[in-house]
């Protein structure tokens, strides 16, 4: 399920089956060109991974629009806002909430978070159409879904 009219209509009809929420965490940083480009590229690949995850588990996972933040943030206060986000969204709908991120700072502050953090190591992808990239993305999706399924 996605944050789309058609999907939400279905969601409210079959709420009891959709018990998992996934939120991609997307950092922004415009201070240097190279960092900005790197983060934008990570944004693309994280979106692809979450899209694939949603495509495979449409009937049980709700993919939230990405949580976007400034990377030089104070992660303690950011965690508080994020917790507020997840507690509002989970309000008697979702039993499992997963945060997907490439940002290692979240891993360092994991204990402050109320939801399950899935931290992925980032790689730079030049061409999303190659077979190797597709294989890599498939592999990532398989491993993440294996982890998520262990919570079900």
């Amino acid at each position, binding site marked *: 399920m996605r944050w789309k009219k058609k999907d939400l209509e*279905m969601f409210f009809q*079959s709420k009891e*089956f*959709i018990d998992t929420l996934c939120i991609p965490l997307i950092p922004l940083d415009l201070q240097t060109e190279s960092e900005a480009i790197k983060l934008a590229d990570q944004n693309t690949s994280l979106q692809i991974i979450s899209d*694939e995850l949603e*495509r*495979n*588990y*449409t*009937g*049980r996972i709700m993919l939230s629009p990405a949580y976007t933040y400034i990377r030089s943030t104070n992660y303690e206060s950011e965690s508080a806002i994020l917790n507020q986000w997840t507690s509002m969204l989970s309000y008697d709908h979702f039993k499992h909430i997963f945060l997907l991120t490439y940002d290692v700072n979240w891993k360092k502050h994991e204990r402050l978070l109320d939801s399950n953090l899935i931290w992925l190591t980032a790689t730079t992808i030049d061409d999303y159409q190659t077979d190797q990239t*597709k294989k890599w993305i498939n592999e990532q999706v398989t491993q993440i*879904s294996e982890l998520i*399924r262990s919570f079900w």
Partner: protein
Amino acid sequence: MSEKKQQVSRRQFLNYSLTGVGGFMAASMLAPMVRFAIDPVLQAAGGEDMHAVVDVSEITEEPQRFDWTVEQVDAWYTSDVTHSAWVYKDENDEIVALSPTCKHLGCAVNWAGNPDYPDQFFCPCHDGRYYKNGLNVPDTPPNAALDLFEFEVKDGTLYLGNVKENPVQEGGA
């Protein structure tokens, strides 16, 4: 002499030319309307959106999942959408291409996804199951069989098109 020359009177001439011009104008208005009205018919006659998916030689009796990407143009933006299909040859050597979309809530099903049922499709979301021909196993969440893809084989390559309802009624491996 002058009698013979005036076979067409002025009145007749005007009548003819008015009918002619009027008819031409009516036709030029009606022709596009007719074209619009029967447009769906013409569309269906033309080639469908078939996509090359896999070499026929790769298809086995064991269902395999094949992915392909389609460029989808929505009103506002163009995006690449990935589709998947489970393809196998049945006992009559006929190709079967099943849609992986579970009829319950739309998750993707996997062949032999549950080790307890190695000869069935399994939906990991809510334990829905389907027989090999796509029919839903009774008493599991789905209430319809997996959809079939329209397909054609051209030059040894399998092309898949739109999904259609699966007519199977009886289960079986």
